[in-house]
């Protein structure tokens, strides 16, 4: 198939991509470059004294056990958020895919949470699960759970995972639903005629055919858990109790903006940047090679 467009002059195509290039350069490459430069400097908050320190900011990070703890924690959070929100969204999508009365309504309602901003999500869950104000905490206490995420790190982590996963369900749901509807009915009918029961049909036909969507969503969810959970963490726990909800992104913020340690903060963002480049690289490789939509 011929995909190339033919342009008469060489100027026009460049002119057409110029605005996009300008945006990418100004808003992505320029700040990224700044971060890389800053990560080699030791500077006070006002930028009055600057020393070039080579890789000291990075070495300092790798010597800091708290940084490793944050890496492990971030991966755990990402994994937990991705798995819980993907599996729940898939369940909902499979159910909403059935011919139901008013299915449009269900589908619309299920998509709503995606429109809620992360800090608002945080506030919503705080109101439900705050140890002294929360509606749900009262029930939890009634069934004998000593619910106090202000002091219990595991409970606080669970709270963040719950809120972050809840918000992402809608997005995943949307893609799963589209993925499910793209599966040819004939394949499923053939399987049914061969005597496969619904469960078996799901695991042997639907699930494999859905794998490109699942893989795509897995990457998107991990990236989401890495970066977009910041608003939720900041409103709900501010990294506490202890450091039990400090993720890599939250650490960039608290070291840089609250602590005024811009060098270390920049070094951390460069490391994060590398992680995302790797993740995206993996995604492109797999999507290009193995997966056909």
């Amino acid at each position, binding site marked *: 198939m011929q995909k190339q467009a033919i342009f008469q002059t060489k100027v026009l195509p460049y002119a057409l991509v110029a605005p996009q290039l300008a945006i990418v350069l100004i808003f992505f490459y320029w700040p990224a470059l700044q971060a890389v430069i800053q990560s080699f400097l030791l500077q006070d*908050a006002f930028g*009055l004294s600057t020393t070039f320190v080579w890789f000291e900011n990075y070495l300092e990070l790798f010597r800091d056990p708290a940084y490793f703890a944050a890496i492990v924690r971030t991966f755990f959070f990402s994994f937990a958020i991705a798995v819980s929100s993907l599996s729940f969204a898939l369940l909902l999508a499979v159910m909403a895919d059935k011919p139901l009365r008013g299915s449009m309504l269900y589908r619309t309602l299920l998509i709503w949470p995606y429109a809620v901003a992360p800090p608002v999500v945080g506030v919503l869950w705080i109101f439900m699960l705050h140890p002294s104000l929360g509606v749900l905490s009262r029930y939890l206490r009634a069934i004998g759970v000593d619910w106090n995420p202000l*002091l219990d790190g595991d409970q606080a982590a669970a709270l963040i995972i719950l809120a972050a996963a809840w918000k992402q369900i809608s997005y995943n749901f949307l893609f799963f639903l589209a993925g499910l509807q793209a599966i040819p009915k004939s394949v499923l009918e053939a399987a049914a005629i061969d005597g496969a029961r619904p469960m078996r049909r799901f695991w042997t036909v639907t699930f494999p055919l859905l794998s490109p969507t699942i893989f795509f969503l897995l990457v998107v969810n991990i990236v989401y858990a890495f970066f977009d959970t910041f608003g939720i963490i900041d409103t709900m726990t501010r990294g506490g109790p202890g450091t039990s909800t400090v993720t890599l992104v939250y650490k960039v913020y*608290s070291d840089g903006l609250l602590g005024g340690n811009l060098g270390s903060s920049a070094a951390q963002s460069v490391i994060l940047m590398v992680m995302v480049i790797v993740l995206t690289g993996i995604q492109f490789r797999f999507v290009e090679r193995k997966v056909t939509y």
Partner: protein
Amino acid sequence: MALRHFGAAAAVAVTFGLGASPALAVTEIQWWHAMTGANNEVIVKLATDFNASQSDYKVIPTYKGNYPDTMNAGIAAFRAGNAPHIMQVFEVGTATMMAATGAVKPVYKLMAEAGEKFDPKIYLPAITGYYSTSKGEMLSFPFNSSSTVMWVNLDELKKANVEIPKTWPETFEAAKKLKAAGHDTCGFSGSWITWVNLEQLSAWHNVPLASKANGLDGFDTVLEFNGPLQVKHLETLVELQKTKTYDYAGRTNTGEGRFTSGECPIYLTSSAFFGNVKAQAKFNFTAVPMPYYPDVKGAPQNSIIGGASLWVMGGKSAEEYKGVAKFLTFLSDTDRQVYIHKASGYLPITKAAYEKAKAEGFYKDQPYLETPLLELTNKEPTENSRGLRLGNMVQLRDVWSEEIEQALAGKKTAKQALDAAVERGNTMLRQFEKTAVK
């Protein structure tokens, strides 16, 4: 409208080669602040009154978000070369601002250079000490100050037949009785865990939080709050947390609703909590001085302040600085200070304003509004109670809170937690010392 006409007139004047007369030019003074609600109205009124009182300068207040946001906005603006003239910075940002020689203009210098009459002795030393050098030179202008007090739900104490406690042992006993009388989720609690239980506790008992007069005498200060008093205090809190006789209410002041809702009948937090208590509490309340340990010699000493001060940013013209100086003089006026005190509940910063409020009988009906002033002026401040000046203080507090939380959760002993807080804090102080302008 008037301004637009003026602009047009100036443009015409310039076009005709006449040039605008300097006497006509209004010098604008940008004032960035972090006040919301009723306190924002106070700020707007102060600016409006000042602008109406003279015609050479115009103060323009702008709300820039909460304290850290305002400070970060100011720092970012400075880096971009357009800092405001006046910036409201919370007390814990003091060391960061002070270290930024060149980025800020010390108030005492500003006043001298602008030829403005300025006598540092008219201010309450307990307040200005926090924002002055060890030689007594005022660096920033105290604006809104408060201190830690103990808020008490009088109705609940009466019901449980408990006297208002004065010492910590009495407070613990009172909390136990209150818990037995039905407050089973919270005998007592407090906000700002580190401010109340480390910073104020140390000053109130005249023990150091950090060496070098808590950092006032130099950035090479070392944290020292893992001493016997602080450890004993935290140990008791940890013990009481197990039964919820004491119940942790978070690092900042988000738990304050637990007092106004009646859940926690005793609550230690800022005196600036007054506005909310007055608006929301459906019971009789008062605020009394922080408790103390009677076995500590000389306790109670004096408390230290919280709140914020106004920093004048560097790199502005002499004319602009003149306007800023006039505005600070305007704010120091006795009647104006009395107004700020009454309208916001924050403390007056001059001795005359305090005397005047007293003479007017302001504290007769509301004795609790005088409590923080009595605490601050309780004794002549010592090295340990003059104030704090630690770099990276915002994040230091977070690190200390993290360790205290681990002790309260039973993951570390009180001693281990405070040792770790000191050690991690010292690492951050050395980092700050490295980047601070020498």
